[in-house]
């Protein structure tokens, strides 16, 4: 099973590296923005956007994960797959995240967290961030 995962990760790695190199050839310097090497969440994108409020993200993420019905790491990974699939830089992540949050509110995809109504994407992101870096 572990080998299978590693194999998938390796395959993803090469696909993304390939795509990124392609993009960097076409579009410039995205290549150097790629950090090592959580292929799914591209942690530097998160850090660029949220590094200054890391403490807040941790707290929200930790609170979310303690809640009944919180998604586990695998499910969170699936939920946040859009980050891997669509994004190349911090700005894109940021705009895409805003769109997801708006769409969650539009569709009533809420998560209650200490009585606050959060877009599901926000709760998932914070939960994942805490799991990875908290």
């Amino acid at each position, binding site marked *: 099973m572990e080998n299978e995962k590693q194999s998938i990760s390796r395959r993803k790695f090469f696909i993304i590296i390939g795509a990124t190199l392609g993009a960097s050839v076409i579009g410039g310097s995205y290549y150097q923005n790629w950090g090592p090497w959580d292929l799914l969440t591209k942690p530097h994108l998160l850090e660029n956007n949220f590094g200054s409020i890391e403490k*807040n993200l941790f707290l*929200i993420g930790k609170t979310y994960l303690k809640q009944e019905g919180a998604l586990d790491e695998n499910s969170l990974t699936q939920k946040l797959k859009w980050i891997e699939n669509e994004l190349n830089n911090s700005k894109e992540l940021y705009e895409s995240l805003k769109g997801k949050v*708006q769409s969650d*509110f539009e569709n009533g995809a809420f998560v209650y967290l200490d009585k606050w109504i959060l877009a599901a994407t926000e709760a998932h992101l914070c939960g994942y961030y805490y799991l990875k870096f908290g």
Partner: protein
Amino acid sequence: MIYNLKTNDVPEELDYHLCIVGGGPAGINIAKEFAGLKTKVLLVESGEFENTSEQENLLDGKGSTDFVEGYGNGYLQHSRLRFFGGASNHWGGMCRPLDEIDFENRDGIKNIGWPFSKSMLEPYYRKAEALLKLGSFKELENREYDWGSFEASNLPLKTPIFQFSALNFGEVFKEDIVNAENIDLIINANLTNIKLTSYNNHVEELVLKALNGNQIKVKPDLFVLACGGIENPRIMLNCNDDIENGIGNDHDLVGKYFMEHPHYPQSAQLLYAENEPLDDTPLYKIIDWIQDTEYATKRYLGLGEEVLKKEGLLNTGFDVIDTKDYDELGDENSTDLAIKHFSDKVWNKKEAPLNLTQTLFLRGEQLPKETNRVELIDRKDQLGLKRVHLVYKVSEEEIANYQRSLEWIAKGFGKQLRGRLRLDLSFDSDMVGGAHHMGTTRMHNNPRKGVVNEHCQVHGIKNFYIAGSSVFPSSGFANPTLTILALSFRLVDHLKAQLNHGK
């Protein structure tokens, strides 16, 4: 003329074309509309012109819920007044008509709706507005709310308007009543019995009694009971000489379907940006009373009728109050502040951070439920009438419904990244009532579903009418007085037609 049943020599029997029992806004309004006409009217008031402790004692009874106890074990007394002017001696003055949806049958909500549409009542709302010196709600509500840069056009949010009137009916109309040659007012007169004719289809005689034992009988052609949402059913249930279950209670409905307007002062916190200019803050113009015309208006936050219908939501309004800075949300280690900072970041609120919190004060419509009811207990008052037991509870179903309404507000602000909501409403939340007693002699044209028909006439009793909010089959969230008055104007037209027809 004024009679005082306690002290004056009053004839033992009196005949009137119309006898109105209850000197509150509805009763006074109906009486004054007959001033100067040929109709002989008697207006019956159980108290005097000031509150007295012995009258207050008559209001005592038993309440069975936390909510009722929450009034210091005195909800039945504190929410009512038993002297001339009735509830207008202490009302808050908030005025608003019911919404169109309040009159409609709604899918998924049982027992809700009136036997006629709002348009039937519109001309009478105009009269009620004039009486209370209010502007036209129709006109005011046509003025669109300026949401600033907040894009509300595709949201289900609305901003219903309230107006204010402090009219004290006892003080303002006493002279009109007393000076009208065709109207007699009798004070200290408590209705203790309603006698029917042998076929039980006509009120023949009313027995009025003072606390000192003086007693008279009144024979009215038409009789209007206007003693409020708790006393109306209490009197009808107590008057069981002719019918064991009480008068008008053939189908065991009298006293049932009691409704209040549950008030949750802390239902939710809305965190949002205080924009520059301030006028661009979406709810800025909702917060305060505004004197932007000759009338003072106050807007609430509510949901549009389309979403109420589609989602099966109760019609609920939210006052926006209690502005606080965000840092009052909690300390630096609280999730409250974490969410604020996170939202600022994700939603890019560098220019206008989410620094403002407002409390949403919820006023809810209730589900009409027969389990919420006024019933009699064996303990009697000084007049020999059984006292009431108010059995009342807000259900979990209603709380869940209010929560869903709040989620729609969260949606409206969230999808524009303009604000987010902390929902503090739960079944254990502190709740008070509006002292609005509704539904206990509900209106329905089917006698198996209502105590009165659409003309406020008690089913099966030709000359017996009921005025006041006890006839409301559903309540919306608007304070009831304006609708009580509109209904009483409508009843006046009907009574006049009946009296003319009789002659």
